[in-house]
């Protein structure tokens, strides 16, 4: 089923999503990948604030290539999500509602998705040029020194993703490969 979705996400919207749905996201999302997750995790351990409020928000596992003059962003496709699995449950417990990446997640992520009524989306891996066209604004908001791994606030318009894991724990990849 095709759906339009606004981000930040509402509880009800997330509950309605089902594994296999095609979703077009419009609104604000945040990028973070390996190094940014490590830093956010350390911040939490030290009782510090995160660089943005994760509540009801979506994190996109992505580190772009540099933009040419006149462009908003360079190539901007998803990276493999499983490398973030170690850090994800704590973020979900803090209210993170959605993640965009590619590939499988472990059971503790799946449990946290169900426990918190969240959702895991996949974007098409290796379609970074195409996906860059759906990003209309990009601002680095934290960890600038990490280069491509800095945290960016992105404004996206009809950003295409597929629901892989829904709030009931259905998993599209499992249905596929068995």
């Amino acid at each position, binding site marked *: 089923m095709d759906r339009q979705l606004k981000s930040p996400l509402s509880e009800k919207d997330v509950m309605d999503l089902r594994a296999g749905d095609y979703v077009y996201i419009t609104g604000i999302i945040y990028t973070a990948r390996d190094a940014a997750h490590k830093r956010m995790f350390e911040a939490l351990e030290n009782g510090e604030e995160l660089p943005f409020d994760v509540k009801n928000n979506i994190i996109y596992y992505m580190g772009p290539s540099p933009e040419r003059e006149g462009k908003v962003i360079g190539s901007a496709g998803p990276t*493999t999500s499983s490398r973030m699995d170690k850090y994800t449950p704590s973020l979900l417990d803090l209210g993170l509602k959605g993640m965009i990446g590619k590939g499988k997640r472990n059971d503790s992520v799946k449990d946290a998705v169900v426990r918190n009524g969240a959702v895991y989306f*996949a974007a098409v891996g*290796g379609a970074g040029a195409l996906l860059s066209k759906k990003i209309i604004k990009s601002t680095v908001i934290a960890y600038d020194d990490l280069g491509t791994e800095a945290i960016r606030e992105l404004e996206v318009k009809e950003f295409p993703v597929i629901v892989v894991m829904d709030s009931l724990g259905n998993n599209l990849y499992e249905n596929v490969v068995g």
Partner: protein
Amino acid sequence: MIREINVNEVTECIKEMCIEANHFLSNDMDLKMREAVKEEESIVGKQILNQLQDNLKIAGEEMIPICQDTGMAVIFMEIGQNVHFIEGDLNEAINEGVRLGYQQGYLRKSVVKDPIERENTKDNTPAIIHYEIVSGDKVKITVEPKGFGSENMSRIFMLKPSDGIEGVKAAVITAVKDAGPNACPPMVIGVGIGGTFEKCALLAKKALVKDITKHSDIAYVKQLEIDLLREINQLGIGPGGLGGKMTALAVNVETYPTHIAGLPVAVNICCHVNRHIVKHI
């Protein structure tokens, strides 16, 4: 006769090759990607493959890298033994080519200085350089910017001789199944059989940069490539791992003599952005 080559020529070549490889697929990859759209049977699979066609078009027209992971630069240098490099250090000239290519081509800097401390080198160097001395007075340069989503799913199996060809097949299928959606299917599979622990890994890497429309000259290896591709494309993983026929575009196998006690097998997995480009100086 000794032939002198200025290392600046190598730098210039590698710079251009890094940029080109990240924006345009080689002809063999391009052909197989187009064929894949026709061969795919699932609706989602077809849709993803069509998106990837659009992606390639945008990449070439607007000079946006095909994928944001513009890779770690793997470089094969086949150097004729009559070549003498002048005017500088060859290693440094190669790395300078990578440095300039990644800077001037707006490519992502994805290399960290130390595997544990993980500070970005900010210019995508050092490259991974493999030298080979061959006869003659020419230089063949192959540049392969290798993405790590698929690299991470690669495997080495130290099989027993008694495992035979069935063991090899099982190893490859296991690696591909485990890779699944993580390796951005449709994948290209490079397999190295024989040699030693490190040799078979290198063979697998070399298999990835071969023309994927061609098969091995060795009859049983050619058959193995055909059989493996058929079996992989029956797994159902499909484009994006969302189900379908086209899990892999090609399987290339390289072999080498080995020890009486061993049967090393390496499976180097690449995604549909299997970048490889060759130039001769």
